């Protein structure tokens, strides 16, 4: 039967793929591989690395695969209204919407900001694309860029940290 055959072929392909890439996956995570789950018809693969040693992720009841939570920053209370969160001496500029984060206006163009740059309140520091629309990301506070948290061209969720500023008044 045709579907049968297709199914078998597909399964074999998947198995092959897993074997060939397991080594690669093993070295991809910083932590040791913990688990690979393959299930098909038609394909879902789940690769898990061991949790890093140390205190377990806070916020009780985290799910095994529950990676989707924005990274928790110690001591930062969730702030649902502003695209900014402060952590210690720095302030995080967070995504005002879900989409793809770009550091520059277009491919090849210089990034809006670099580490060390001084930005003013309201200055554009990046762009988020959603449904082909480019939405400016602006710094809410003035400060010096201390870290670029989100990589250029990566998907970000709402309120995910993009970059860190040391506020001017903290100088």
């Amino acid at each position, binding site marked *: 039967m045709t579907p049968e055959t297709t199914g078998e072929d597909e399964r074999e392909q998947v198995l092959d793929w897993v074997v060939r890439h397991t080594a690669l996956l093993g070295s991809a995570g910083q932590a040791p591989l913990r688990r690979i789950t393959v299930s098909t018809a038609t394909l879902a693969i789940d690769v898990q690395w061991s949790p890093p040693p140390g205190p377990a992720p806070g916020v009780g009841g985290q799910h095994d695969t529950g990676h*989707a939570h924005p990274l928790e920053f110690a001591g930062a209370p969730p702030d649902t209204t502003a695209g900014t969160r402060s952590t210690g001496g720095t302030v995080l500029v967070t995504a005002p919407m879900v989409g793809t984060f770009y550091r520059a206006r277009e491919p090849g163009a210089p990034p809006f900001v670099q580490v060390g740059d001084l930005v003013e309140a309201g200055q554009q520091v990046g762009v988020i694309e959603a449904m082909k629309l480019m939405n400016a990301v602006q710094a809410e506070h003035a400060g010096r860029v201390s870290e670029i948290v989100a990589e250029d061209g990566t998907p970000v*969720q*709402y309120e995910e940290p993009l970059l860190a500023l040391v506020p001017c008044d903290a100088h």
Partner: protein
Amino acid sequence: MFTTVLIANRGEIALRVLRTCREMGVRTVVAHSTVDRDSPAVRQADESVQIGPASPRRSYLNPAAIIAAAQQTGADAIHPGYGFLSESPEFAEICQAHGITLIGPPAGVIARLGDKVSARAFAAEARLPLLPGGTGPAEGVSDAARTAAAVGYPVVLKASAGGGGRAMTVVHDPGDLARAYAATRQEATALFGDPRVYVEKYLDAARHVEVQILADAHGEVLHLGARDCSVQRRRQKLIEETAPPNLPAATVEHLGELSVRAARAAGYVGAGTFEYVLDEHGACHFIEVNCRLQVEHPITEMVTGIDLVREQLLAAAGQRLSFRQADITPTGVAIECRVNAEDPARGFLPTPGLVEEFVPPGGPFTRVDTHAAAGTRITADYDPLLAKISVWAPTRAQALARADRALGELVVRGQGVCTNVAFLREVLTHPLFRYAKHTTSLVEQMMSTPMH
């Protein structure tokens, strides 16, 4: 079949859709607002994306956020649940433009059937029985008054783009029409960005009966019987029941055939509901089509054994229906009670708060659909639905007793949280309801008696 379905909803319906996806081996992504980040659907999803703040306009009603989340996670289909974007033809078009399947009827069908005025025109064409009323939106207050006088008072003014019982005004006296017309237009503009209002005959003592239909993309349409949804407060359903009590099987069959014929004419695909009102003489009048899964779909599942979400996914994936009308023989009686975090004594005002203890009912022929558990925070951002308690029994009397038993078992406790459970149980024991003589005015009648 789809590889990954993004669920663009929250609460119990997000969980409901997730359950079937998981059973079908489909990967799930739950798109959620910041306040829902610890909800059970998010916890159980294979992946989740935070799409915006609590405000629905910036999260669950935001097409760009949902499309971005679907693209980020490689979702090839979106299930919109009910409410939010589930009946937005614009969103359906956006999905299509992005190569993502929206699980629901085609955009054109939603556009035609979702707008109440064009649905009325369609129904007239499809020879569905219509309530007397205007043939289009009123062209001004005097046009509205002319139509009202022609059909006879009371009349109802409805937003053409409306839904969910909002932007609807009943007018009993011609002297009130002008003010009501202005108010409804204003409300319609505020809620739906569309001021069009039309006039229809209003039935004071009506039963609300709806037909569940199911259609594949190959022109096969069938119905799964009818539900009675006459128990409503503020035009929102509280208790639903199938088969409709005291309604001849021939009437259900007739409404089913009408709905199937109309759905086929409209090119409907997926699960949908045709709503009717029945006047005191048993005459049926079409009111609207809901182009989505209905809150009360579990009771149809209980009497037919058919998983409606599964059928939605199969239909959206282009598969043929695997059964025929003759294979469907609804058995017994199923009743759903909607438990809301609200205070019936204060006009059903929602009561947000923190659920500290939550024990659902269980046991024979009892189904619970809920996102609530100890620790759930009920916020004012969304509707106050806490749980749907559905029961099945071979007879109506047994089903009523079972529903009352199940509601009696439910424990919801927490600071500030109040529920309508006691009120639901009052309805279940009300003589009009027990004898199935109730109409959509039952709750009002109960609230106006000093006993409560």
